[in-house]
Each structure stands twice: as C-alpha cells, then as structure tokens.
C-alpha cells in the first residue's frame, strides 16, 4: 500500500468516523443522565440534514441560516420527546423506556416520510466541491468542515462538562442520581437538557454530513447503529471514548472497504468490534462494572 492510498483511506475514515463520533456522543449524553440507549438518536441526525434542506427550499434564508434553523428545530424535537414521552414515565424500567424511544424513532421517520416522501435530498457543500490534493490523496473541502466542526463540538462539550456548573451537574447525575438530587440538582431538568443536547449534537452531525452523503427519511437507522457501535467500542458513558470509538469505526470501515471489499466493510468493522469486546468487555476506555449484592 502506497502513502497516497493510505492517506486517502485515513481521510475518508476520519470524515465518516467523526460523524459516527457525534452520533455516539449523543447516545452517551442521554445514557449518562438516564441509563438508557436512545434509539431515536439516528433520527436526530436524519432530522438535522433533512430540515436544513427543507428550510433552504422553503424560506431560502441562505445556507448558514438554514443550518441554524435546522439545528434549533431538532433540539426542540429533543425537548418535546423528553417532555411528552420520557418524563411522564420516568420511573419505568430501562427496557420499557428503550421501547418508547423505538416508538419515537418510528414515529419521526413516519412523519418525515409523510411530509417529504422517500426522496433523497442533498445540501450544497459549505465551501465548494473543488478537491484539495495532498501528497497524492484527494480531499473534498467538506471533509475538512466535518472534521473541524466535530473537533469544535467535542471541545465545547468538554468545556461544558468540566467548566460550567450546569455541565458538572449533568455529570453528577450520571454518577449517582440520588446523590445529585440530595445536593439540590434537579435531575428532571438535567434529563431534559440531555435530550436537547444530544439532539443538538446529532443535528450538527447530520447537517455537516448531508453535503457529502445525501440524506433521506431512513438514513437515521444506519447512522444510529454505527453511533451505538462507536460508543460501545469506546466504553459506554465516556464522551472521549465515544468520539474515539467513532473515529476508529470510521477508519476500520474505510480500510476494510479499500483493502478488502466495500460489500464486506461493515462485516469487517463488526468482526473487529466483536474481537475488541471479547478482549475488553467494557469497551476500550470503559470502566468495568462492579456488582453489589
């Protein structure tokens, strides 16, 4: 393998991987406050992309404004989801809440299909399509946008969780909700914030990915699955692990597709994930669970 194709695989792997990482971050944020896996996370990613296209055509406010509107609208969907379907039954068991999120994801997909059909939509690239040549590899400018924005979002989240009182309160809920409540943190409000935050992160991922891969009502399923795989790979509950898991998954897929076969790229990636899980049952950066009897 020469340097050029190595770089090429790495670039495309990092690009796709950072959107997986953003989806994985969404899973992690909700998992940390509620202990559940939100099956509608992929739908947040899909909504970000589709709504940006819709706002572009409908209001024609220019790309940046359409993106902003789409991200805000998706965040509101996250808020509504928590208010209407999670909070009323917040004491239900985890598996029940997960089935509720499956119901929400089906409903969102159904609504998008009802309003905008099964067509494929595309968003214009943020800064043209003229490829950049680097040491023999070709990189589309959108890839740089994706990488850059993913890094910014990650840095902001890191700052949010470690510097702001609100973020630290959210983190406290993930360690021990009862103790968090005892020191005066409103766990309900943190759960609501976590749904908004993960919808926001998902939407950002969807918006930056759409110019590259296009979007339709059903892209959320696969992206959600990859995001889930990424956060398990990195160790559930660890935001850094989620982002790293996403990048690793993206790179695995890119090299699998480039070196072996694109038909088997998902199979290759998942075989490696299975291997890693058998080696480290709590993911790469996860802490092993201890059980109290």
């Amino acid at each position, binding site marked *: 393998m020469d340097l050029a194709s190595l770089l090429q695989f790495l670039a495309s792997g990092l690009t796709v991987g950072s959107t997986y990482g953003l989806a994985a971050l969404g899973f992690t944020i909700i998992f940390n406050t509620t202990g559940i896996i939100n099956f509608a996370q992929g739908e947040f990613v899909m909504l970000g992309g589709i709504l940006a296209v819709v706002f572009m055509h409908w209001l024609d406010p220019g790309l940046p404004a359409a993106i902003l509107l789409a991200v805000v609208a998706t965040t509101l969907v996250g808020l509504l989801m928590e208010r209407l379907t999670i909070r009323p039954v917040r004491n*239900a*068991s985890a598996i029940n809440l997960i*089935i509720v999120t499956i*119901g929400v994801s089906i409903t969102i997909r159904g609504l998008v299909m009802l309003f905008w059909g099964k067509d494929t939509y595309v968003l214009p690239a943020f800064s043209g399509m003229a490829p950049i040549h680097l040491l023999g590899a070709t990189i589309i400018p959108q890839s740089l946008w994706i990488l850059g924005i993913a890094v910014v979002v990650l840095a902001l989240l890191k700052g949010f969780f470690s510097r702001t009182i609100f973020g630290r309160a959210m983190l406290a809920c993930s360690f021990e909700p009862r103790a968090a409540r005892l020191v005066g943190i409103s766990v309900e409000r943190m759960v609501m914030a976590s749904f908004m935050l993960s919808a926001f992160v998902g939407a950002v991922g969807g918006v930056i990915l759409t110019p590259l891969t296009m979007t339709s009502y059903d892209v959320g*399923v696969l992206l959600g699955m990859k995001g889930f795989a990424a956060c398990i790979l990195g160790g559930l509950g660890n935001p850094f692990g989620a982002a790293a898991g996403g990048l690793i998954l993206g790179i695995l897929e890119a090299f699998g597709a480039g070196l072996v076969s694109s038909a088997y790229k998902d199979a290759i990636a998942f075989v490696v*994930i299975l291997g890693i*899980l*058998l080696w480290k049952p709590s993911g790469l950066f996860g802490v092993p669970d201890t059980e109290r009897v």
Partner: protein
Amino acid sequence: MSSTLRQLTPVAAFFLLVLATPFLLRHDYYYLSILTMAGIFAIIVLGLNLLLGFAGQISLGHGALFGIAAYTTAVLTGTYGLPLAVGAVSGVGLTALVAMLIGMPVLKLKGYYLAMATLGFGLIVYIFFNEAIGLTGGPSGFVGIPVLEVFGFVFDSDLSYFYLVWSMVAVALLTSLNLIHSKYGRALMALHISETAAQSMGINIARHKLFVFVLSSVYAGIAGVLYAHYLNFVAPSSFGFHFSVQLITMVVLGGMASLWGGIAGAVFLTVMPEFLRFYENLEVIIYGLILILCMMFLPKGLAGGVCKLLSNVRRRFGREP
C-alpha cells in the same frame, strides 16, 4: 381451584381458541395466513422471552438465527433436493450450533455490550445472506423452497399450515412453562436478579446462560424452518436488524417474563399493521404512536394490563383476588 387446574385452564382455553379461530374467521385465508405468520413469530418470541424476560440476557441476533435455519433448509431442500426431514433437522441443528459457538464467548458480556455483540453478529450474518449470492440468491432472495410434507401429508393449504404452526406454538409454550417451573427456570430467574448472588448459591452462570441462549435459538430455528416452507421464498430483508428489534419489542410489549404475554405481543404486532394498512401514509406514524402509548400506559405489557383488568373485575364483584 387446585394449582394444577389453575395452570391447565388457560392452556385448555388456548387450545380451544386455536381450534376455533379458523371457524371464527370463516376461513378467510388472508387473516389465516397473517395469524400463521404471527404463530411463527410467537415461537421465536417464546424462546427470546426465556432469554430476555427470565434470564435477563438481551439478544439482537435472533433475527439472524431465525434466518440461518430458514436459509439452511431452503438451500438443502431447494438447491440440493434433499429430503425435507434432512433440511429441517439441519436447519435447527446448525442454528443451535452457531448459537453455541457465538454464545460461548459473547454471553460473558453484559447489558448493552451484549446487545452490541449480538447486533454485530446479526449484521455479519445479514451481510453474508446478501453477498453469498451463489448460495443464498443474494438480496433478491431464494426462490423455489418445496412445500412441507410430513409422513406423506402435504401442508399445502393455509388451514393445515395454520394448525401446524399453532401446534408448534403449543409445544413451545408447554416446554417453556415446564422449564420455568423447574430448577433450571428458578436458576435463570436468580441470575437475572444478581449474577454474583446466584453464583454464590452454586449456580453455574456461564452454563445456564449458554443453555437458555441455545434453547432460544432452537425455538428460532424451528420458526425459521416453518417460515421457509410456508412462504417457499426467503430474502435477507426478513432477517435483519429491524426484525431483531421487532422481536425484542414483541417480548417487552407482551410482557417481560410472561409467556402468554409474549404470544400476545407477537400476535398484536403482526396483526396491527394489517389493520393500519387502511390509513396508507399514516400507517407508520400510527404504529409508532401505538407503540409509545402502550409502553407508557402498560408498563408490564399486554399481559400485565390484562392481569390488572382481571383483578379489578374480581374486586368489583367482591371475590378474593
């Protein structure tokens, strides 16, 4: 009422209901075929309920296990023209073998990690079904699976297949009821609550988990064989991630750790879309909303809902609950 009688009454009622259903439907073959499919899914759900509801171990790979049995019997009887018995036994046998080989390493994972590992296994199998075109026919499916024939009796009518499938549901149900009231069943429930505590009581956790995982794969395998010979056609899309998630939904919606609930969940989620078809574009949305509302207002699933209703009725009529 003695406890045996109390247990046998619902079983007898179930038999009568199954016997009477074709007459109640006035032999409407469309509905009969939907209920046959519901029965096939109910067999998988009964097995999955032992795994998830009783032993507390999740699997997002049961769609794939179901598919392995269906494709095995399809290829052996369809491509190679082997006898049906060979196809059926190999189908179930191979499914159990694969489950054992997968289960041994992955069942030491817990919770979401186990979900991920079984999901990954399911996805790999799904990709194999799609890509091994020479063997499976690829994405467009496998055509020409022979009609089921047992001791010279050909199951070529919807009515005969309906009775065949639901007899198998009954066998699966009785086997499961027997299991959960045995030492094994109690051990499974114990390891659901706390693995460490169960282990310290002398329960071999790894062996029990593997046993119930392989047993549930046998259920899925039987269902897969029935499915392949009923439709005479299989395609990868029936065995993917969606279907595995749907199976979990059937277990939880019906009522975790309730075998009757599992059957109810399978029938409910198979029959409901047929009624929603009338609403065309709104079909998916209504399906999603019903799922949300059921899970919000019936925390113990359909089975829990019915039990609550029954106890309310009993209380109203002043009888002991």
